[in-house]
C-alpha cells in the first residue's frame, strides 16, 4: 500500500450499504428534500442503519489499525520517534498521578471495607472483597477513563481540528496517514490503560496487605494464598481481556469519531459528544460482560 493511494480507503460519495444500494438514511434525506412524507418507521429504520453504519466504521477502522499494528513496517525507524512521543505522552505524565490518586482512593475504600468486615466478624472475607472490588473492577475502569480523559479524547480533538482545517482530507486517511497519525495514538492508548491498571493494581495490593496485616512479613503466606484464591485462571483471563477491550475502546472510538464524523460547522462538539457516549456505552457493556463472566 503506497502513500497517497487513497482510493482504497476513500469513502464513497454516497453512503451505500454492503450491496452498493443507497442506504435508508440517504433515501430518507432525499425524500425530505423532495418534500415527500416520511413515515415514522422509515425514520426509525434510517436511524438504526446510521447507528449500525457508525459502529461498522469504527470496527472497520479498528481492523485496519490492528492490521497495521501487527505489520512490521509500521515500526520502521522513521516512525520510532512518533511512536515514542505518543507512548510517553499517553502514559508517562499520567501514570504517577493516577497511581497516587488510585492509592488514596483505594486506601479509603480498603479501610472502610476492612473496618466494616471486622465489625461484622467477617475479617477473612475482607481481603478477598478488597482485591475483587478494587483490583479487578474499579482500577481497570478508572484507568481506562483516565487515559480517555487525559490522552485519547484530547488527541481525538487534535485530529478533528486538523480535519476541520483541511477540508480536502479524504474521508478515510490513506495508509501512511493511518501509520503516522492514528496508529501511534491508538497504540499509546492501548499501552496506557494496562500500564496504569497494572501499576495501580500492584500499589492497591500492597496497600491492602499493609492495611490488613500492618508492617509485618508474617502475613505474606496467608495473603498470597488469598490472592491466589481470587485470581483463578478464568478470572485472570477475564481481567486481561477486559483491560484489553477497555484500552481498545478508549483508544479507538475517539479516533474513529474524529475521522469519520464529517467536519463542518458546529460538528466538532457533536463528534466529541458522540465519541463520549459511544465510549461509555461500550465500557459499560464490557464491564457488564466481565461481571457476568466472573460472578455467574
Amino acid at each position, binding site marked *: 500500500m503506497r502513500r497517497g493511494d487513497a482510493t482504497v480507503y476513500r469513502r464513497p460519495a454516497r453512503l451505500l450499504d454492503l450491496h452498493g444500494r443507497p442506504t435508508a438514511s440517504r433515501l430518507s434525506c432525499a425524500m425530505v428534500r423532495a418534500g415527500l412524507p416520511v413515515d415514522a418507521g422509515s425514520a426509525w429504520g434510517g436511524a438504526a442503519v446510521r447507528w449500525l453504519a457508525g459502529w461498522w466504521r469504527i470496527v472497520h477502522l479498528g481492523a485496519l489499525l490492528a492490521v497495521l499494528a501487527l505489520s512490521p513496517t509500521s515500526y520502521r525507524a522513521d516512525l520510532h520517534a512518533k511512536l*515514542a512521543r505518543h507512548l*510517553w505522552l499517553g502514559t508517562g505524565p499520567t501514570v504517577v498521578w493516577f497511581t497516587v490518586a488510585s492509592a488514596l482512593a483505594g486506601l479509603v475504600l480498603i479501610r472502610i471495607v476492612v473496618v466494616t468486615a471486622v465489625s461484622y466478624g467477617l475479617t477473612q472475607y475482607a481481603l478477598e472483597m478488597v482485591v475483587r472490588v478494587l483490583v479487578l473492577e474499579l482500577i481497570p475502569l478508572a484507568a481506562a477513563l483516565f487515559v480517555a480523559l487525559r490522552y485519547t479524547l484530547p488527541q481525538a480533538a487534535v485530529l478533528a481540528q486538523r480535519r476541520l482545517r483541511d477540508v480536502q482530507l479524504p474521508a478515510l486517511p490513506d495508509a501512511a496517514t493511518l501509520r503516522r497519525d492514528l496508529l501511534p495514538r491508538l497504540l499509546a492508548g492501548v499501552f496506557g490503560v494496562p500500564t496504569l491498571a*497494572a*501499576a495501580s493494581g500492584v500499589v492497591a495490593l500492597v496497600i491492602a496487605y499493609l492495611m490488613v496485616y500492618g508492617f509485618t512479613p508474617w502475613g505474606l503466606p496467608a495473603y498470597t*494464598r488469598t490472592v*491466589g484464591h481470587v485470581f*483463578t485462571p478464568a478470572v485472570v483471563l477475564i481481567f486481561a481481556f477486559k483491560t484489553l477491550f477497555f484500552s481498545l475502546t478508549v483508544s479507538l472510538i475517539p479516533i474513529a469519531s474524529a475521522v469519520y464524523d464529517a467536519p463542518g460547522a458546529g460538528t466538532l462538539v457533536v463528534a466529541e459528544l458522540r465519541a463520549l457516549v459511544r465510549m461509555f456505552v461500550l465500557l459499560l457493556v464490557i464491564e457488564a460482560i466481565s461481571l457476568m463472566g466472573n460472578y455467574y
Partner: protein
Amino acid sequence: MPVTPPPAPPAAEPAAPTPAHLEFKAAALLVAMLVLIVASTLYLLYARGAFERTQELTLITDDAEGVAVGMDMTFSGFPIGRVRRVDLVEDGKVRILVDIPVKDAHWLRETSVFVLARGLVGDTRLRAYSGVLTDPALPAGATRTVLRGDATTEVPKLVAAARELVDNLARLSAAESPLAQSLAHVQAATEKLNGPRGALGLVFGNDTDAQRVNDTLQRTQAALARLDGVLRRVDGVVARADEQVLGPQGLMRDVQAGVVQLRELLQASQDSLRKVDAVLEEARGIAGNVSGATTDLGALRAEVETSLRRIDHLIQEVNRRWPFKRDTQIQVP
C-alpha cells in the same frame, strides 16, 4: 434559506515541545510495564501454587455440596492443601482430588481424619486432623473417606422441635386449654378464700356444710372444756394417791420398813440354816452311832422345830406385808 458561512477553522496549534530523551523514556516505560506484568504473573503463579511440588490425596464423600475447585484443606487452621478437581464416580460418590504441597505433607498421617464441615454461616471447610503425629506418613496418592459435619442438617430437626414446642405452648395458652381452665379455677378458689367463709367455704363448696363444721368445732371446744375439768379432778386424785403412797405416812414407808425387817429375818434364817447344815453334817457324822446320838436328837429336833416355826412365822409375816406374793409353800431342805 440563507446559508450561514462556516466559521473559520481555528488556527493551527503550535506543536507541543518534544520531551527530552523521548525514546529512552518510552523504552523505559515499556520495560517497566513488561517487568510489572511479568512480575505480577509470576506472583500469581506462585500464589496459585504453580511452583510447588505436590502430592495427591483422594477424598471420597457422598455429598460434596459446597466443595469448590481451589478451596483449601486446613490443618489446625492452616491451609495445607488445595482442591484440584471434584468429580462424580460411577458408584454415585464424589471424588475430591487434593493437591498437598510436599513441604506440608508431613502433617498428614495414616491415621489422619478428614472432615467436611458445613456451618450455618460461611462456606464449606475441608479439615484434616492428625491425632498421632508419630504414625507413618500418609503416602502419595492415598484415598480416604471424608467424614461430614453438617450443621445445616440439624436445622430441620431444630425447626420441627421448635414448631412442636410452639404448638404445645399455643395449646397450653389457648382459651379452652386445661391450663387456662385450671387458672380460672384457681382464681375462683382464691376469690372464695378471700370471701366471708374463707377456706371452709372453699373446701365444702356450700354454706350449710361449712356451718355444720363451725358447729362441730364449737361443740368440740365445749367438750374440751369439760375434759379439762375432768383432767383437773384426775390431777387431784393422783395427788392424793401420791400422798398415800409416797407421803410421810404412805405405803412406801411401810414397805421400806417391811423390807428391812425381811432382810433381818432372812439373815436370821440364813444363820439358822447354816446351823442346821452344821447339825446335819454332825448328824451325818454320827449316823453310825445312832444309839449314841439318840439322846441329843430330841433337843435337836426341838431346836429344828423352833427354827421351822420361826421361818413359818416369818413367811406368814412376809405374806402379810407383801400382798403380791401368792406362793406360800415352803420346801424344807
